[in-house]
């Protein structure tokens, strides 16, 4: 067996770069939080800021399974939709307070993830297609459920019982939690294990990584934040149906925002959301058809020219930056 090493202090500047990296990141988070928290007080467009917070949460959540672990869940919207419906059912059918209902939504999302966990054994594209198909099946199943529970094709309307401003701040809270979890993951052993799985799952296995368990944790975390986002969205907007709750464009936009910034770092999805959500909102309001064209164009250009996104490409070109990016 190899002998025991001498002193265990790292020689390189690992510690100092760590502090700088954290400082940069947490400053950014603080800035975002302050800016969003003050929006209602500044009389700014609450819908827009809510949108930003929601997409940032979704993109961050997607990053756990797609960026860290390397699995692209093309049915990601399933968790979002389930979160919305579970929240609605909790509120209207079970009579729970809204906070509890949203947590219920989160719980149901995680449960769904555990149920679908066997699909993680599938490779790349098979996983993407099955994930998409499961989301479609789920949408159709829910639209078949009794109207008393899920509202049938008209969906659910919970706006009468919920407070919009509370919903706004609830989303902020969810975003903060998502970013904190992401920060923790980025520097944790689980995060490292996931990236090894992403890069080469067999080699990771041969180096002692418990692939199944690590992947499951990432999957559950991704599902949690998507379903919480769906629940709070239902709280804020007050109404939804199976078409809006399970719209494949939700997955598409989440993927674009996350990839535009760069999957695999915590900074990436946030940067991508900041960069694109403004453009998206402006165009969507005025030109819905053009908006989809632009979405498609952006994905295409991204994949062809900058598959690692803004942050990722910068890191590829400037190795020195890597240690400063969370």
């Amino acid at each position: 067996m190899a002998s025991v090493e001498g002193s265990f202090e790292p020689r390189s500047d690992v510690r100092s770069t760590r502090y700088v990296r954290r400082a940069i990141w947490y400053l950014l988070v603080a800035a975002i939080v302050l800016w969003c928290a003050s929006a209602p007080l500044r009389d700014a467009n609450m819908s827009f800021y809510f949108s930003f917070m929601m997409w940032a949460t979704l993109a961050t959540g997607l990053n756990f399974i797609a960026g860290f672990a390397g699995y692209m869940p093309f049915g990601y919207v399933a968790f979002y939709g389930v979160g919305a419906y579970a929240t609605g059912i909790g509120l209207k059918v079970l009579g729970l307070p809204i906070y509890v209902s949203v947590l219920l939504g989160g719980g149901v999302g995680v449960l769904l993830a555990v149920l679908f966990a066997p699909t993680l054994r599938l490779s790349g594209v098979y996983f993407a297609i099955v994930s998409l198909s499961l989301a479609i099946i789920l949408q159709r199943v829910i639209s078949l459920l009794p109207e008393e529970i899920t509202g049938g094709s008209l969906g659910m309307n919970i706006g009468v019982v919920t407070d919009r401003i509370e919903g706004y701040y609830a989303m902020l809270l969810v975003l903060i939690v998502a970013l904190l979890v992401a920060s923790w993951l980025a520097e944790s052993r689980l995060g490292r294990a996931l990236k090894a799985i992403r890069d080469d799952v067999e080699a990771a296995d041969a180096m002692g990584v418990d692939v199944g368990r690590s992947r499951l944790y990432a999957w559950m975390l991704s599902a949690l934040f998507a379903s919480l986002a769906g629940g709070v969205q239902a709280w804020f907007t007050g109404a939804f149906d199976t078409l809006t709750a399970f719209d494949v464009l939700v997955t598409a936009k989440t993927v674009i925002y996350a990839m535009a910034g760069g999957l695999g770092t915590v900074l990436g999805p946030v940067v991508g959301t900041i960069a694109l959500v403004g453009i998206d909102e402006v165009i969507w309001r005025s030109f819905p058809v053009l908006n989809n064209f632009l979405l498609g164009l952006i994905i295409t250009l991204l994949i062809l020219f900058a598959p690692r996104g803004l942050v990722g490409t910068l890191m590829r070109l400037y190795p020195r930056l890597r240690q400063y990016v969370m």
Partner: protein
Amino acid sequence: MSWTSDPILEVIGLTKRFGGLVAVNAVSLEVGRGTIVGLIGINGAGKTTLMNCINGIYKSDEGGVTLDGKDLTGRTPHEIALAGVGRTFQIPRTFHRLSLIDNLMIPMLRSKQSDDELIARAERGLERVNLYELRANHGEELSGGQEKLLELARVMMLNPALVLLDEPFAGVNPTLCRLMIEQILAMRSEGTSFLLVSHDLTSIYRLSDWIYVLNQGEIIAQGGVEAVRNDPAVVEAYLGG
């Protein structure tokens, strides 16, 4: 009737089939504690398949594998890695988008030591193979030879009792080869055992305490360096046919 009185690895009657093809046929071998055992054979003889069976990437159809008395048969690769068996790959499988330090930390994720201690150990490991300068670079930015060195340094972070080396010298320039051989010998003197697969017969003859010859999935000869070198069956398998 083994060549060693203190085996760390025992493979007994291992068989692996792919459909109608028998890739490994009732192979039995031992690796003595603190020794280097060479495994040679022409292409397609079944060497990599045998390695994959030992470290759990394939499930063998028959037979068993024991490490220091512990039965590893049918276990998953990560359980076998944690039991003390390391593995390098014929085509290097470094983690492309992880830094070299992170590459070396992956085998140590179960450790109770702090992250900083692990980083220090990883730095030490990189120094031993002259890769410390590139510690912040990603795995994909290394040359082929450097990747092989990285794999070696990485597998050592497992503190393995046994290391399976699959063609470690293939395509590596002589300087790096020398460095690898130095490290392998240093590790052997610290008690690590090796099963070494290589086409580079010079290195095999130089390093091995015992050699097995595999042909068409079966052991056709075994022995010390001189014995194997001159064994007519071996000569025929390599040159004849």
